[in-house]
C-alpha cells in the first residue's frame, strides 16, 4: 500500500477574476522507502502541493490518502492529529522554536502528542546521537549553524515516527556543501526507516540522490525521465 497518494488534486485560491489555479489534476503516489523530488519554477505550486499532502491545507478537488486513509473530509482538529502522528515536516531554517534547546525541540513533538515520558526521552537522545547532534543537545537555535538547524529539523520530523516526510526547500538557506550533507542525511534516514519522502528543491544538484524527480509547471505535475 502506498504511504502517500494524491488523486486528481486541484487547488484554487481566491474568487472570480482573482482566481489562481495553483494545482490542476495532480496525481502522485509515494511508497514506503521511496524518496521523491519535486522541482519547478517559482509560483508553480510546489509549496501548495506539499501543504495539501501534509494536511496543512485542504484541496479544492480530488482526494488525499495518507497510509490508505482519505483525509479529504477531516476537520481541522483531526488534520492537526494527522500532522502530529503521521507527517514529519522539514521547513526552512526559521522553523525551530527559538526558545527551545535542541533536545526540547524533539521533546516538544512528544509533548504535543501527549506521550512525553521516559521512552520518548530515550528516543530523542538516540535520534540526536544518530544525527550527530549529541554535542549540541543543550544549544538554542540561535547558537546553531544553518546545517545543524536543518539536522535538528530532520530529527524533529523523525521524532513522531511518521509515515510521510515532507521537506520544502530544506537547503534554501545553506551553502552547497552543507546543503548536500543535509540532503544526504535526509535521504539516508528516510530510506533506512522506510518513510515515504517528498522534497521540494530548487537545487538540481541534489536530484541524483533521489529515486524519482517530478516537475511542476503551472500547477501540473509531470514525471521527469532520468
Amino acid at each position, binding site marked *: 500500500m502506498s504511504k502517500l497518494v494524491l488523486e486528481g488534486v486541484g487547488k484554487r485560491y481566491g474568487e472570480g477574476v482573482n482566481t489562481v489555479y495553483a494545482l490542476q489534476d495532480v496525481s502522485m503516489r509515494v511508497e514506503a522507502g521511496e524518496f521523491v523530488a519535486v522541482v519547478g519554477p517559482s509560483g508553480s505550486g510546489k*509549496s501548495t502541493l*506539499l*501543504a495539501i499532502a*501534509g494536511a*496543512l*491545507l485542504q484541496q479544492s478537488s480530488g482526494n488525499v490518502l495518507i497510509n490508505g486513509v482519505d483525509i479529504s473530509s477531516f476537520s481541522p*482538529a483531526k488534520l*492537526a*492529529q*494527522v*500532522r*502530529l*502522528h503521521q*507527517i514529519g*515536516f522539514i*521547513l*526552512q*531554517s*526559521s*522553523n*525551530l*522554536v*527559538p*526558545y*527551545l*534547546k535542541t533536545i*526540547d525541540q524533539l*521533546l*516538544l*513533538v512528544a*509533548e*504535543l*502528542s501527549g506521550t*512525553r515520558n521516559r521512552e520518548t526521552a530515550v528516543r530523542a537522545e538516540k535520534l540526536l546521537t544518530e544525527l550527530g547532534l549529541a554535542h549540541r543537545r543543550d544549544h*538554542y537555535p540561535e547558537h546553531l549553524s544553518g546545517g545543524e538547524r536543518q539536522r535538528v529539523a530532520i530529527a*524533529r520530523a523523525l521524532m513522531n515516527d511518521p509515515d510521510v516526510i515532507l521537506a*520544502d*526547500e530544506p537547503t*534554501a*538557506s545553506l551553502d552547497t556543501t552543507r546543503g548536500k550533507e543535509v540532503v544526504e542525511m535526509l535521504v539516508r534516514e528516510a530510506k533506512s526507516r522506510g518513510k515515504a519522502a517528498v522534497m521540494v528543491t530548487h537545487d538540481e544538484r541534489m536530484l541524483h540522490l533521489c529515486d524519482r524527480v517530478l516537475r511542476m509547471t503551472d500547477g501540473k505535475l509531470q514525471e521527469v525521465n532520468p
Partner: protein
Amino acid sequence: MFLALRELKHSKMRYVLIGGIMMLIAWLVFLLSGLANGLATDNGSSLKNMKADAIVFQSEVKLYLHRSLLPMSKLDEVKGVQGVTNAAPLGMLTVTTKDSDGTESIDATMLAIQPESFLAPKVIEGQALAANSGQEAVVDKTFKRHGVKLGDELKIQSSDQTVKVIGFTTGQTYNHLPVIFTNIPFWQKIRFAAPGSDSGIQNPISAIAVQSQQDGITDMLNQKLSGVETVTRDVALQNLPGYKEEMGTITMMLAFLFVIAAFVLAVFFYVLTLQKSNQFGVLKALGASTSYLAKNLLGQIFLLSLVSIVVGAGLTYLVAAVMPGEVPFALDNGVVVVYSVILLIVSMLGAMISLRRIAKIDALQAIGKVE
C-alpha cells in the same frame, strides 16, 4: 506549561520587564489601599474599634457627633428597648491642649465616658479611669510623640480646666485627632461652660452607644424613642466629616489604576503574541492545537502575574514596616488579598484578547517562507 516555562527561562529580560511593570502597578495599588485604610483608621479609629453595634444621635443633626445633644435620661429609655443588651453614654468635644511643661499646642478630640461602661479604652500604660475620677484622663499614645508623659497636666485651652494624664491607650483617634478620654461630669463642665449652650437639657450627653445582637435594632430604637436618629456603627463611621470624600478620591484612583493595568497588560501581551505569530504558525504546523497554545499562554501569564503581585505585596509590607508613624498607613491583609485577586483577573482578561489572535493564526504560514 512545557513551552511557557522554557520561554520564560529563555527570554528572561523581556519577562522581567513586563513582570516589573506589573509589580509596580501592584505596588501602587497596595500602597493606595494602605493609605485609604490608614486614613479611614486615622479618621475614626475610636468609632471603628468601638465595641458598639449602633449609635443613637439626636435627630436632624446629620449624624454629627459634635452637634448632637441628648439628655442622660434617654440612656434608660434605650436600655429599656427590647433587644438592647447594653448601652453607654458618650460625650464629645474638639479641644486644643497644652502640655504644662511644653509650649506645643495639641489638637485632640475629647471623648467623655462612664469609666465602668464598655466604652472604656484599653489602657496600655498607667491606670484606667476610675468612676468619679475628676480631672484625670487616659489619652491616645500619639500624645507621647508630643512629649506628654504620665502624670503631666494638660491645659484645655479656652477654659480654665486642666487634666492629669494617668494612662495611655492605643488606636484611638477621632476626626484625625488623638482622643482624650475623661469622665462625663468633667466634660460637661467644659462643653457647657457658656450659659445656655446646653439648650436647657438636663444632664446632657452627645450620644449613646448601643450593644445589641438583634437585626433591625436601629429601626426599633428610632420607632420607640422620640427625637433620636439611630444608625449602625459603620454608617456612623461613613458619616464622619470628610470620610466619604477621602474614600471616594482613593477609590476612584484605585479604579483607574485597575483600568490602566488592564489596558497596559493587554497591549503588552498582544504585542508579544503578534511578535510570536510565526512561531505559533510553526507549532500549529507541527500539530499543536489552539487550546494547547492558549493554555500555555494563560499559564505563562498567570505565573508571571502571580510572582509580580506577590513581589509587589512583599515590597508594600516592607515599605509599611519602615514608614514613619505619622503617616496614616495601615495594610489590611484581607484587602491585599482581594486586590491581588482583582489584579490577577485583570491581567488574565488582558491575555484573553491575545487568544483570539492565536486562534486565527494559520499553520500554513509556516510553510513556503524563507526567513
